[in-house]
């Protein structure tokens, strides 16, 4: 892998806590790359290592082919947008934005021009003379963004920049960040714990858990082909199911799952009798009143949640609770859907199932 930013086997521990356990990935020039994972999985630590605020114990960080691990933060030419903005409180908006150019000793007129340009870009014109504490959270976020953009960094790092904003503003701002990144051709590494946000923004996403990279790929790849249980569970919701293999034929296996024959696509070599784990997403599970033979599991509806665009079902069979979702139903159709207590068949297509693991022989 020869990307613009290459991270190899990066390791960092705080005493006994291993924050990064050998993470590797590569980011192309102009790519929007996101680190996605639950709180505490090491995302911030990774960004801080990239920026030089934290020293990794082992591993490499290459930018444009050069190892930067020994470079001080001020020598790396990397923009950083902090979760809590970290604006300079004694300086005005314009002074905050101009700071990076001033320490680079750019001539005054150039500074003024570039500051105005970037303030216009992020929609903050006219607020030059405000102090940070006179701005709303969204505006402070924009100043933080402008301050990092104005130095035209080689790489822009963003650490959960939207987490302090309310839901509506968050959606607005993420569109804007994506637009700016595309227009300016910025190479960005973005951190979030919000799967939807990561999908909305990114070219590619790296899913992390407990200091380790779990899977890297486009949103589509992660969604349709999660490599393991963690990724499958973290990307949206999913049903984890399992059964014993009863039949095998080129590219397919059939397992006995919760009393039903379930056909699954797999290239793996599974022998009859072996245990197989697989997942199927709620949005691929239909509730039907008649069995279609294969891939239909009998269950009782326990809860129905009307959410507007979707209706969620919890259907029970034995000790297993299956999640199903119905989308875009009309007012008339709603009346005809299964109700709580009703017996149904949870049906799904073989193509929508992903085999996670098989028992080794």
């Amino acid at each position, binding site marked *: 892998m020869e990307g613009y930013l290459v991270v190899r086997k990066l390791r960092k521990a705080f005493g006994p806590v291993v924050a990064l356990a050998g993470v590797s990935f590569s980011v192309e020039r102009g790519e929007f790359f996101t680190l996605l994972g639950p709180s505490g999985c090491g995302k911030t630590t990774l960004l801080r290592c990239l920026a030089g605020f934290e020293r990794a114990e082992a591993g490499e960080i290459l930018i444009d082919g050069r190892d930067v691990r020994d470079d*001080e933060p001020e020598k790396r030419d990397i923009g*950083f947008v902090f979760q809590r903005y*970290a604006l300079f409180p004694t300086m005005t908006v314009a002074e905050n934005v101009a700071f990076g150019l001033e*320490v*680079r000793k750019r001539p005054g007129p150039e500074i003024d021009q570039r500051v105005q340009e970037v303030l216009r870009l992020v929609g903050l014109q006219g607020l030059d003379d405000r102090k940070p504490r006179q701005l709303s959270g969204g505006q402070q976020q924009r100043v933080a963004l402008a301050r*990092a953009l104005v130095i035209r960094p080689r790489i822009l790092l963003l650490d959960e920049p939207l987490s302090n904003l309310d839901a509506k503003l968050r959606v607005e701002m993420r569109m804007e960040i994506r637009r700016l990144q595309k227009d300016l051709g910025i190479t960005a590494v973005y951190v979030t714990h919000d799967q939807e946000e990561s999908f909305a923004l990114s070219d590619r996403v790296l899913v992390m858990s407990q200091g380790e990279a779990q899977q890297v790929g486009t949103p589509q790849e992660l969604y349709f082909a999660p490599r393991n249980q963690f990724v499958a569970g973290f990307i949206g919701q999913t049903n984890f199911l399992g059964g014993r293999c009863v039949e095998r034929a080129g590219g397919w296996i059939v397992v006995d799952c919760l009393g039903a024959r379930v056909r699954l696509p797999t290239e793996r070599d599974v022998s009859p009798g072996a245990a197989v784990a697989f997942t199927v997403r709620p949005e691929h599970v239909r509730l039907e009143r008649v069995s279609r033979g294969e891939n239909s599991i009998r269950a009782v509806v326990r809860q129905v949640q009307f959410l507007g665009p979707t209706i969620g079902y919890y259907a029970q069979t034995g000790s297993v609770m299956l999640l199903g979702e119905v989308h875009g139903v009309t007012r008339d159709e709603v009346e005809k859907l299964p109700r709580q207590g009703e017996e149904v068949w949870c049906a799904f297509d073989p193509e929508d199932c992903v085999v996670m693991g098989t028992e080794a022989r």
Partner: protein
Amino acid sequence: MSARRWRWVYLLDAAVLGGLGFLVVAPLAILVLLSVTQEWGTGFRGGLTVQWLLEAPRVFGASILHSLAVASVTMAATLLLSALVAYGVLTRKFRGGIVVDALVMAPLTISYIVLGLALILAFKEPPLRLHGTVWLLLVGHLMIAMPLGYRTTLATLEAADIGLVEAARGLGASEWTAVRRVILPLVSPGLVASSLLAFVTSLQNYSLSFMIAPERYKTVPLQLFEYIFAETGSYSNYNLGAAVSLVLMAVLLSALGLVRWLTGQSWHENLNV
């Protein structure tokens, strides 16, 4: 609550304020009275004079200069040292922050007389033969000024979010530039407060100076003590003593006013909440 009860609360307030006010104001008033009256004990009846105020700088001139010099150096050294140590401890530049903390605070727990003795014993032989020189006086004053200066500086820095240094460095500033341009404006009022504490601690000190000040480098408290107690018999010494204190107070107040004016607005305004 009934009106009656309120009246009691007001009365209590008035009593407390009045009592405290009297405790503070009475000695100050007597100080002023003493410096401008002819004779101790007779009050205004003895007649008013500026004799003491004029005489004070002449008689105490040398010790006033000594005191101001020692206090200024102590203040500067305390400011520099506490800023460095507090910044280092906060940013974990060195290990053992707790030990450093304890070492800086230790002199506060020792009687100054004993501290003076310890300093003399420690520095009376080569290689560091400081006893009998003004250097030992400076070392001693630094030791007793540091706890206050350091604590104040640390608290100020803690309130200022050291994370801003990272933000500035990420934008291309060296650590020094980051501290100077981002942190310093934020903490300067706190540093001024810390410096003033150091200055006053040095200026006021009697017991430690008594132990370690060189014979030829008397500070104001030392000379005052001699004037008031050693040469009893002449009341005029009280008046002169009061006048010296008044002169020093005037110097201090104008210094305070000057820094207030120089540092401009309050820093609370800039703290991000």
